[in-house]
C-alpha cells in the first residue's frame, strides 16, 4: 500500500522555473561568487557569526587554561553540554549527507539544487562536532593520542573505548565528506573560472578546478566517481551515526543501555539535518535571489522528508518509553520517571512537542510550501533536537543505579558560551562557503533543466 501526500503542486510542476536556461543558471550562480563586494546581508550575517566565533575562541582559551571545571559538569553528571552538543552537531552534519548522498542514489530531482547547501552545511557542522569531544577532554592538548601513530609509549589507542570509535568515525566522515564535496563541485569551479573577470579569480578558481575542461571523458569519470562516493557515503553516514548511538548503548547506564539508540539517533539526524538545510535554503534563496532555482518543489520535498523523519522519531520515542515499562529493571523505570517528571521534564516535554508534534503540521500542503511556517517549524525542530540530546545525556547520568549518588546538572556561563561559540564557527564557515563557492550545483541544475525540457 502506498500513501500519496497531496502536494498542491500539479504532477508536472517544474522543479526549476521554466524561464531558467542553461546559460542563465551558470551566470546567475557564478555571479554570486564572482561579485566584487559581498551584499550587505552577507556582511551582517558574517559579522554576527564571526563575533560568535570569537566567543568560542575566548571560551576555549578559558577552558584550556582552567580545565573543564569551568563547565557545569561534575560527578555524577560528568557528560554535559559538550557530549550532548557533539551528538547534536554530528546529527546536523549527517542530515546533510543523507540529503546529498542518499537522494543522489534515488535520483531525486529536488536534491540537485539543494545538495551543495547540504554539503556546505555538513562541512560547517562537522568541525563543530569534532571540537566538542576535544574540549571535553581533561587534557585536550593530548587529543592526538587518538591517532594510531608510532609512539614511544608502546601502546595503541584503546579500540574498546567509545572515544576512539568516535574519533575514527569522525575523521573518516570528515575526510570522505571533503572529497565528496570537492568531486561534486569540480565542474562548477571550472564554470566560475571561465566566467571570472579578474586575473586573481581566474588563477584561484583555475587552480581549484584542477584543469577541468569539460570533455566527455572527464564528465564520465566525474559522474562515476561521484556515484561511487555517494554509494559509500549513504551507508557510511548510517554507521557513523550508529556509532554515536553505540557510545551510549554500550554504557551500562539506565536510559542508555538500549539497542535502539543507533536508529534512534539516525532518525533524529534525518529530522534535524533536513530542518537546518531547509532554513539555510530559505536564507540562500532570499539572500542570493535564487527563487527560480530553489522553488516550492524543493521545499515541498524536504518538508515531506522532515515529516517522514519525525514519524520515525515518534516511533523511537514510543520505544524509549516502552523499554523501561516492559523491562524489569527498577533503575530503568526510575530513570525514565525522573526523565519525564524530574528536573529535565520541561526540556523533555518541549522536545517531544517541537520534534514530533508540531512537525505534524507538515501533513498540510500549504504548510510545506509556506516558508515562514517552515522556518518556524525547522527552528523548533533544531531547538527540540538539542533538548533531546541534552535530556538524554544529563538525565541518565543524574539518575544512575545508586539513588545516594544522584545529582543534577546546572550549566554555567561557559557551557552556554561553548554552544554559542560553535554556532558561530558553524555560521562563519557556512558564510565563507556562501561567498567563495557556488552554493547551488550548476552542473546538476543544468541537467535538471535538460530533463524538464524533454518532459
Amino acid at each position, binding site marked *: 500500500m502506498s500513501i500519496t501526500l497531496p502536494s498542491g503542486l500539479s504532477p508536472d510542476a517544474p522543479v526549476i522555473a521554466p524561464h531558467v536556461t542553461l546559460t542563465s543558471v551558470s551566470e546567475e550562480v557564478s555571479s554570486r561568487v564572482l561579485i566584487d563586494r559581498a551584499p550587505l546581508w552577507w556582511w551582517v550575517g558574517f559579522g554576527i557569526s564571526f563575533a560568535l566565533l570569537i566567543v568560542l575562541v575566548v571560551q576555549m582559551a578559558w577552558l584550556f587554561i582552567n580545565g573543564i571545571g569551568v563547565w557545569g559538569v561534575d560527578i555524577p553528571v560528568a557528560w554535559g553540554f559538550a557530549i550532548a552538543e557533539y551528538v547534536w552537531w554530528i546529527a546536523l552534519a549527517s542530515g546533510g549527507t543523507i540529503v546529498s548522498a542518499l537522494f543522489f542514489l534515488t535520483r531525486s530531482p529536488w536534491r540537485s539544487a539543494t545538495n551543495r547547501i547540504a554539503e556546505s552545511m555538513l562541512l560547517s557542522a562537522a568541525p563543530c562536532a569534532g571540537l566538542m569531544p576535544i574540549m571535553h577532554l581533561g587534557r585536550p592538548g593530548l587529543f592526538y593520542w587518538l591517532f594510531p*601513530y*608510532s*609512539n*614511544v*609509549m*608502546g*601502546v595503541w589507542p584503546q579500540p574498546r573505548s567509545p572515544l576512539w570509535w568516535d574519533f575514527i568515525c569522525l575523521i573518516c566522515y570528515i575526510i570522505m565528506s571533503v572529497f565528496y564535496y570537492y568531486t561534486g563541485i569540480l565542474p562548477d569551479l571550472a564554470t566560475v573560472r571561465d566566467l571570472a573577470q579578474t*586575473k586573481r579569480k*581566474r*588563477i584561484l578558481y*583555475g*587552480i581549484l578546478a*584542477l*584543469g577541468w575542461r569539460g570533455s566527455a571523458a572527464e564528465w564520465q569519470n566525474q559522474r562515476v566517481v561521484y556515484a561511487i562516493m555517494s554509494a559509500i557515503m549513504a551507508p557510511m553516514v548510517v554507521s557513523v551515526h550508529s556509532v554515536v548511538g553505540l557510545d551510549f548503548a554500550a554504557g551500562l547506564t539506565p536510559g542508555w543501555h538500549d539497542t535502539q539508540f543507533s536508529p534512534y539517533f539516525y532518525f533524529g539526524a534525518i529530522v534535524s539535518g533536513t530542518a537546518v538545510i531547509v532554513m539555510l535554503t530559505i536564507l540562500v534563496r532570499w539572500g542570493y535571489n535564487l527563487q527560480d532555482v530553489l522553488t516550492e518543489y524543493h521545499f515541498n520535498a524536504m518538508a515531506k522528508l522532515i515529516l517522514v523523519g519525525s514519524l520515525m522519531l515518534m516511533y523511537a520515542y514510543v520505544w524509549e518509553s516502552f523499554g523501561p515499562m516492559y523491562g524489569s529493571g527498577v533503575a530503568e523505570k526510575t530513570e525514565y520517571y525522573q526523565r519525564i517528571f524530574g528536573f529535565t521534564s520541561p526540556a523533555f516535554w518541549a522536545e517531544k512537542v517541537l520534534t514530533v508534534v508540531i512537525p505534524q503540521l507538515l501533513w498540510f500542503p500549504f504548510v510545506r510550501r509556506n516558508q515562514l511556517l517552515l522556518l518556524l517549524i525547522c527552528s523548533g525542530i533544531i531547538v527540540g533536537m538539542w533538548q533531546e540530546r541534552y535530556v538524554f545525556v544529563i538525565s541518565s547520568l543524574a539518575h544512575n543505579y545508586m539513588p545516594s549518588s544522584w545529582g543534577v546538572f546546572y550549566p554555567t556561563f561557559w557551557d552556554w558560551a561553548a554552544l554559542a561559540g560553535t554556532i558561530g564557527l558553524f555560521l562563519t564557515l557556512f558564510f565563507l562557503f556562501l561567498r567563495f563557492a557556488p552554493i547551488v550545483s550548476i552542473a546538476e541544475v543544468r541537467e535538471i533543466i535538460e530533463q524538464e525540457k524533454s518532459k
Partner: protein
Amino acid sequence: MAIFTPRANLFMNAALIGAVLLGACLLLAIRVVPVIGYNTQERFAPEQPIPFSHKHHVSGLGLDCRYCHTKVETSSSAGMPSTAICMTCHSQVWRNAAMLAPDRQSLAENIPLRWNRVYTLPDYVFFDHSIHIAKGVGCTECHGPIGDMDLTWKARTLYMSWCLSCHRDPAPHLRPRDQVTTPDWRRTPSTPSGEALMADYHVHTENLSDCGVCHR
C-alpha cells in the same frame, strides 16, 4: 591570453608529489625524532658536584650497590648515600683531595650533597625499586653497564615502550635474587630459565601491563 600554459601541469604535479613527500617526511619524523639521542638523553652524563666513578668503586674496589644505595631493597627510591657513608672511607683515604672538597664541606655544614638526577621519571609514573629487586630484576637491566661507567650516564630511554617491553615479557630480564646487584652478571647454562624464575617469584604478566601498575 591563457593564464594557464601547459607548464602549469608541471607545477601541479610537483605540488602533489611534494605534498606526498612532505607527508612521508612527517611520518618518518614522528618515528625518528623521539628516539634520537638528543631527545632521549641516552649516554648523557650530567655534571655532578663530585665526579663520582662507579667504575672505580664498583668494578675496581668491589663495593656492593647496596653499600651506598641503602634503601633499594625496601623502598621505592634507591636512596642516595649520605655524606657519612662517603666518609666511612674518605675520612681515611683521599682526605685532602680537592675533588672531594664538596663532600667535606657537606659534612662540616651538615647540608647534604646535591647530586644531579640522571634518571628522571614524570610525576605520574610510580616506579618502585624494591619490587624490582625482589622479583630478580638486576640493577644493570635498567642502569646499563654501571660498573664500567666513569661518570654515571643514562643507559635507557625510559620511554614507556621500554618499560612495557619488560612488563610484557619479563623472563629474559630476570636473574637469581642473589645476583641482582652483580654488575657483570652473565646467564650461564646452570642459571634457572627466565620462565622458572618467573614462576618462582610469582611474576604474573596478565596484569603487569595494566595502567594502574605504574600510573595510580
